[in-house]
């Protein structure tokens, strides 16, 4: 009898289902215990330090100003508004960084594949040097370099020699637009022009498919997109104007301004990530077999068309997923702004606001929420793209 119970005990131990349940319950209870332990500790610590909790701090006024904000903000606005300002600043620098990365990355990636030995080697050196040094080092170096070489406001660089854009050690200045009544008409003009261009492109495509006649759609499209809003602008009585920055006292006034830290970040993020991007582009183009180029050339396409219609679309299938993960990295690495004092979400919200208000857990959670939702959005787009590409395939 005891022997039998031993056997059945063994059966129980070696039963896969029971084991699965056992291990899961064990892990779960360990994790739950850990969370509970941390929770009680935190609670005790917070009552001991007299810290308040809850998200109502978002309506408390914040007593600090920021160097750069895209929506109206002044010291004395709420933390909720600070969060908004920080998110917009983060998104702006990330977007410009992404554009810079993509353009520069494609450029360098194609240079790396150049048939010119020297060009390919220079591009390779660019990639290796940038990839093998830390981004933070590069950001700080760019920042110091900019601050060392940018002039005082009185001697601002007149960028493009237009008397509109200026560069000095307070930042980069440009004209800002102001909108009077009647601007709506111009906006409507832009929308109508866009719709017209889309219709035109579809029509051109249809005509080309049916008859083979090629309509010069780019020239027409450009014409429409320029002419319609301009006409609307004059009909509405020139409602939109520019406010150009002018030197007053020791500083430029008027227009918009981005601080040097912002310029630094856009340059540093674009340059650093373009090195990674270039490698993806190169790998993507190399992944298209040589036979494809030959086939494209043999049906009479010239090199440019072969690249545009045959090689690039296939290479994109390999490039896009890695490209999007590089974009994600640009977003994440924009948090290094904290090192040069650009007020984006990590610097302004997670550092300044946290130190000022002391709502550690809420602020960390909100910051993580921002990054989490950005990465989820980006990966959602990636999934949609992948699905489309896979449908095209076979």
């Amino acid at each position: 009898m005891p022997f039998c119970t031993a056997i059945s005990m063994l059966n129980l131990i070696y039963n896969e289902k029971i084991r699965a349940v056992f291990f899961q319950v064990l892990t779960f209870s360990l994790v739950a215990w850990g969370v509970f332990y941390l929770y009680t500790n935190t609670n005790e610590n917070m009552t001991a330090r007299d810290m308040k909790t809850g998200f109502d701090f978002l309506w408390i006024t914040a007593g600090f100003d920021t160097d750069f904000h895209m929506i109206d903000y002044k010291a004395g606005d709420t933390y909720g508004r600070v969060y908004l300002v920080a998110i917009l600043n983060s998104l702006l620098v990330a977007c410009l960084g992404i554009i810079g990365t993509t353009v520069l990355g494609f450029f360098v990636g194609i240079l790396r594949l150049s048939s010119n030995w020297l060009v390919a080697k220079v591009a390779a050196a660019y990639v290796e040097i940038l990839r093998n040094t830390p981004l933070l080092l590069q950001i700080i170096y760019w920042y110091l370099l900019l601050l060392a070489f940018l002039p005082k406001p009185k001697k601002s660089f007149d960028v493009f020699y237009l008397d509109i854009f200026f560069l000095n050690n307070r930042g980069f200045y440009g004209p800002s637009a102001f909108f009077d009544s009647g601007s709506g008409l111009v906006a409507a003009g832009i929308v109508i022009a866009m719709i017209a261009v889309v219709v035109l492109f579809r029509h051109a495509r249809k005509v080309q498919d049916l008859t083979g006649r090629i309509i010069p759609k780019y020239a027409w499209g450009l014409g429409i997109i320029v002419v319609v809003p301009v006409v609307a602008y004059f009909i509405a009585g020139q409602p939109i104007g520019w406010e150009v920055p002018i030197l007053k006292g020791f500083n430029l006034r008027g227009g918009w301004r981005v601080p040097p830290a912002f310029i630094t970040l856009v340059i540093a993020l674009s340059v650093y990530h373009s090195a990674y991007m270039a490698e993806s582009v190169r790998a993507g183009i190399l992944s298209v077999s040589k036979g494809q180029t030959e086939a494209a050339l043999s049906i009479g396409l010239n090199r440019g068309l072969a690249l545009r219609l045959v090689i690039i679309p296939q290479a994109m299938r390999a490039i896009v997923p890695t490209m999007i993960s590089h974009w994600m990295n640009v977003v994440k690495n924009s948090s290094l702004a904290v090192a040069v004092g650009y007020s984006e979400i990590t610097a302004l919200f997670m550092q300044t606001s946290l130190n000022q208000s002391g709502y550690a857990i809420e602020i960390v959670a909100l910051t993580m929420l921002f990054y989490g939702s950005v990465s989820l959005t980006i990966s959602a787009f990636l999934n949609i793209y992948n699905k489309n590409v896979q449908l095209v395939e076979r």
Partner: protein
Amino acid sequence: MNQVATSSIAVRSARWARENLFSSWINTILSIVCIVLIYNVVWGIFSWAVLNGVWEAKDRRECFAILGKDENGIPILGACWAGVRVWFNNIMFGRYKDGQWRVILGFLILIVWLIPLWVPGVKRKFLIAAGAIGLYPFLGAYLFLGGERSWFMSFMVSLTIINLVYNTTDWVGDKVFRVSLADTLRWKLVDRIIPEKQHTYALMALFAVLAVIVGYLMRGWGLDHVASVRIGGFFLTLVISGFGITVGLPAGIILALGRRSRLPIIKALTVTFIEVFRSVPLITILFMATAMFPLFMPEGFELNKLAQVIPAVCLFSACYMAEVVRSGLQAIPKGQYEAASSIGLGYWQSMGLVVMPQALKFMIPNIVGNFIGLFKDTTLVFIVGMFDILAMTRAMSNDVPWRGEFHEPFLLTAVIFFVCCFTMSRYSQRLERKLGGEQQ
């Protein structure tokens, strides 16, 4: 004969240049642009750093005075290496002033430990690596921090030393004299007393006894205590990234296995964990560690900043490594799993003996790529106020005698990182080619 050879080389190089540099007029223009660019950059840096470099000066002003001005009254540009020379020690060791020999000795020991991994034909490389990961930290921690030893620490330190001596004599003896210490011990001595299956246990017991004895003998010997805040400069960067790498890989493997597990709760937990920490930047995790860690811990439990930062870095690295390992696991064909279970291996055996070795081998370039990324990202601890290499580089240009001098220290730091990362990536490429060749 000689004439022909040289002319043929000249002809060949001319042909090469024509084909590769001047094949069309666009290529010719590009080549010329590149040559001008390379000339300017290389010559500019060379004349700045080497020709005009100042090595002896007491401050930056003296550097400028030595460099002087040219005939047009424009200051001559030159690197002021004198400042970097003064600060070099800080950049490497931070504020670890006394007993830097301990740091150097620690890294030498690590190098000696790891050399056999690079020597072809050494047996039991896995055990050597596992020893380095599992035991070396004790020796390293004691060498770097010193102070009072608990009996456990004494035991571990002596065990580490014994392990190192054993490993080294074993592989050196095997390579040089064709006598393996391990085999001698196992087959000549232990075999007479204990059956074969228990050799490993016998050796472990022997080591433990030896360690107790050595630990007892070492009781009078000790090193001065060094506060952990004194660890800085490149040394700190190496310590943090070393922890990140050695903890990250095993933890990443476990997380990856959890993510591929068929057990829903384990899978859900690991997926959440990995995705949450992968979606936020490292700097956020570091802030979180320094701001929230004190809140999470029970009252009176205090940790220095180094001990707050290291877990954060390890956690981050584990989550990224988990994704790399997972993609390696996905690349293993299902037949391998089935084959492993059909010969009667259980889950851990089939993972450890069949699947994981293949997956890790397959993923070596990505794993090394991750290491490089982590090594570079370690500089972020500068932002939470640690005195790593970047902080020291930055501090130099705020030091009064050298105020405003930043090109030189940044160049030094960039070169240090470049050499480390470039070597790692080249090594992984070589390994990849070698392993790729093996498979075919």
